């Protein structure tokens, strides 16, 4: 009764040979590279025997037994655990960019350790595990609480995870800037260091990893059912929420346990499953097995590279976290090219982002925000704490205070506007409400360039910085658009690409942080938006630039409404798609870069302002642009004012405050959104 199939049936698909070959290559290469420095001192047999014994008379043998062998063993063990945890996470959320790092677990653990170091040092001595697990659970608990009502829809979970990561990172930084002297070595811990001097940590760790691993494997069949999407999984009788909860809990335990021993070894849990899948691990079982093996190999490789770099460099420590990030970044970028079918990932159809609040008048909303902005400006110029008490500066005396308060305020407001505009532009161009300069790594691209400049020690002035940052942002955005084009800007691809850039930025940052010194604190201040670095001419220059761009944007309102309809529809409506896209790309990059130079890459304004505009009922492009710009300016204006006064006479970077406030707003909005 059915048409005869036109082709012959195919036999059972087998595992592609390249998978075991690649794993074997990585393992052998990493092991040999790791063993190479020792081979001169010990023969192969003795070196391998170092894993269980040593000769007390031979110093090299003792060293190998207590330093090299446990380091290799722990790298393999941790890599295995993280690879498995990553594969399980990706399966739960049906999302190729899910991993313990992106869910905020690692940031949470780090946060836990920071807090314990500062306030409860005794607890840390008692059990670092406990603190890290608590922190990790706190982070994921936050993520779960926020997404509970949405049934853990994958996209929301990732989004909440990213925001929690950024948020906890920002809190961490705030501690660091205020109490830096207590947290110095936390930098190194935070960057992940696998250096060992005995077998205790390994002996301590392996039973836990084993137990957690076995539990994860036991969950395999329910996890497999999840692959069919929420509706079908539920209709097969799987308790979707419970399974996700249980599996996520195991993932947290696994990563926090690992992290409390060696610090944040980011992106192994992301890269290993992605690589396994790319190399052809098809079924869940295959993915679990090969992700674990690849995780081990990759971490061993990264650790060896870090070890070598530390030895051959000028003695400065290169943490393993840096090299894992350097390996993780490219793998994610490759994944972006190779992963097919991800725009059709299970669960994506039940995203809850497509809500439409009631439309409201732009004049009223925009007016209200403009008035608030004005109040902020006046308050910020006039009302400030002095040495003894608060005082009011009348307008007549503003010219005296201007030099201290004016340029930075102006620059902050302008940066906020720029981010609001850039965020709206990018959201419209990609047709994705989660897109923003921060999330897509466009700020990250600008930051990478800035970090490179700092690392190279060159001093190129503000204009040079702006130019370089624009270049970085434009490259990042261009790359993203190029990569994501064939996937029609599906959210996953863009976020994945942005994440890869963020990883690079992170690697550079960790390196700088671990080396410490004045460079680190300068970079830190800039990263978190120290507006006091801005001079008057720069602020005025920025004003001119933003006005110019805003005028250009007026011309692009209509093309921007058409672009989300898709390339085909846009060009059949007579829009020169390539040209318009290039123009918008440049504008967005320039806006992001000019804001990043002032406020750093980590404020949430570019994500929040457009979102706020939508929530306030501004659905069309032009209205959203205006309100988003005003809201962005307001947010950063307030942040700048608060940063000046909260710890007076000290200062906090405004971007840090914006990230804290913005993060809170976003988390709140997300949970409220779920309730609606």
């Amino acid at each position: 009764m059915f048409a005869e199939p036109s082709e012959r049936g195919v036999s059972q698909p087998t595992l592609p040979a390249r998978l075991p070959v690649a794993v074997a290559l990585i393992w052998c290469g990493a092991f040999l590279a790791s063993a190479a420095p020792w081979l001169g001192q010990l023969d192969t047999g003795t070196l391998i025997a170092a894993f269980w014994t040593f000769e007390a008379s031979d110093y090299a043998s003792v060293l190998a037994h207590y330093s090299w062998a446990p380091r290799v063993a722990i790298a393999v063990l941790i890599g295995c655990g993280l690879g498995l945890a990553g594969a399980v996470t990706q399966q739960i959320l049906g999302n190729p960019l899910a991993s313990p790092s992106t869910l905020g677990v690692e940031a949470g653990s780090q946060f836990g350790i920071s807090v314990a170091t500062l306030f409860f040092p005794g607890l840390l001595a008692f059990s670092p595990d406990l603190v890290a697990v608590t922190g990790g659970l706190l982070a994921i608990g936050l993520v779960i609480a926020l997404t509970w009502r949405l049934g853990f829809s994958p996209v929301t979970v990732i989004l909440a995870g990213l925001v929690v990561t950024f948020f906890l990172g920002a809190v961490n930084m705030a501690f660091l800037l205020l109490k830096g002297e207590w947290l110095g070595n936390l930098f190194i811990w935070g960057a992940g260091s696998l250096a060992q001097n005995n077998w205790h940590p390994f002996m301590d760790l392996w039973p836990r990893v084993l137990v957690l691993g076995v539990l994860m494997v036991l969950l395999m069949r329910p996890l497999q059912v999840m692959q069919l999407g929420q509706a079908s999984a539920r209709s097969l009788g799987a308790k979707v929420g419970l399974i996700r909860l249980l599996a996520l809990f195991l993932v947290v335990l696994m990563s926090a346990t690992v992290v409390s021993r060696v610090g944040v070894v980011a992106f192994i849990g992301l890269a290993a499953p992605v690589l396994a899948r790319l190399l052809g691990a098809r079924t869940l079982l295959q993915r679990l097995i090969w992700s674990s093996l690849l995780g081990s190999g990759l971490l061993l490789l990264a650790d060896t590279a870090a070890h070598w770099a530390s030895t051959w460099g000028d003695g400065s420590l290169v943490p393993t976290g840096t090299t894992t990030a350097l390996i993780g970044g490219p793998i994610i970028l490759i994944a972006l090219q190779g992963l097919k079918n991800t725009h059709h990932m299970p669960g994506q159809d039940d995203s809850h982002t497509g809500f439409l609040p009631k439309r409201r008048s732009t004049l009223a909303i925009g007016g209200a925000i403009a008035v608030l902005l004005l109040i902020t400006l006046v308050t910020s110029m006039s009302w400030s704490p002095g040495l003894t008490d608060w005082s009011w500066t009348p307008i007549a005396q503003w010219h005296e205070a201007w030099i201290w308060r004016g340029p930075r305020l102006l620059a902050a407001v302008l940066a906020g506007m720029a981010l609001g505009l850039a965020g709206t532009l990018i959201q419209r161009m990609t047709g994705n409400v989660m897109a923003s300069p921060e999330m897509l790594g466009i700020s990250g691209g600008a930051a990478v360039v800035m970090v490179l400049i700092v690392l190279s020690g060159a001093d190129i002035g503000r204009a040079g910085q702006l130019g370089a940052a624009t270049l970085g942002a434009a490259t990042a955005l261009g790359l993203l658009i190029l990569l994501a084009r064939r996937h029609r800007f599906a959210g996953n691809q863009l976020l994945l690409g942005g994440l890869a850039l963020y990883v690079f930025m992170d690697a550079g940052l960790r390196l700088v942080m671990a080396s410490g010194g004045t460079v680190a604190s300068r970079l830190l201040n800039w990263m978190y938006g120290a507006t006091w670095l801005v001079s008057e001419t720069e602020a005025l220059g920025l004003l001119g630039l933003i006005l110019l761009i805003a005028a250009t944007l007026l011309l692009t309102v209509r093309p921007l409404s058409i672009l989300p309809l898709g390339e085909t529809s846009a060009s059949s409506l007579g829009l020169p798609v390539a040209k318009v896209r290039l123009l918008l790309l440049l504008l967005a990059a320039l806006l992001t870069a000019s804001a990043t130079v002032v406020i750093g890459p980590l404020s949430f304004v570019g994500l929040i302002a457009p979102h706020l505009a939508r929530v306030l009922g501004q659905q069309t492009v032009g209205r959203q642009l205006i309100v988003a710009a005003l809201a962005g300016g307001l947010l950063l204006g307030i942040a700048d004012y608060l940063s000046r006064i909260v710890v007076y006479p000290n200062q906090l970077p405004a971007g840090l405050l914006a990230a804290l406030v913005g993060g809170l707003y976003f988390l709140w909005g997300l949970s409220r959104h779920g309730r609606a």
Partner: protein
Amino acid sequence: MPVFFDVSSLDVRIGDTAILHDLNLGFVEGEVTALLGHNGSGKSTLLKVLARQLAPTSGKVQLLGRPFQSTGAREFARHVGYLPQHPPGTDGLTVRELVALGRYPWRGPLGRYNDEDHRLITQAIEDTGLGLFQHRSVDTLSGGERQRAWIAMLLAQQTRCLLLDEPISALDVKHQVETLRLVHRLAQQRDLTVVVVLHDVDLAARFCDRLVALKSGQLVADGSPRDIMDAGILESIYDVPMGVMERAPGQWVSYVH
């Protein structure tokens, strides 16, 4: 015949919008029922409520005379299978692996698959004519074959009821007919209760025992094809002037004036 689903005074609201309003309906065991109605009439919502994908705002649904919500998840899945309107990508699963997942309600997270399970899986694949494709990745199949693979999964589930949400909307005429014929045949062989959302009223009349039409969340017509295939009733369902011809006994053609 016992009533499989019994829906009484069912209300579903999303926000302020009433999707279904005061619906009373019974689905008889062993009958193939088509849900008709224009877009937004609430057909898919009704189906989701029956599949327990969506909790009703108020009202009651009974499954074989028992309260509906109290049944355990896997217990429910042994009675009712649901095919969503847009099945997601399966990410490299082969047909056989997909179909094997249909045994989950019976075996649970840890239970071993025995010979009976494998026989049922093979049977489901044979019944849907996918024998030659069983080791192909589902994503590489054509639309019609993919639809059949998902139906095969529902068959392996061995439920007494299938809920199909527009199973043929993306298919060409040939595959539409093949899929419906398959559903019809399976329903007869296995005495299944089937509720299927359809857009094509002619095909519905050809392959279903009973047609139920919704409009703005309320019941507008309910009866055998012979009752429903009437110019006046179709007009009241679709708000378009229509006519009906009976070409042969049990074969109607509807057309738009």
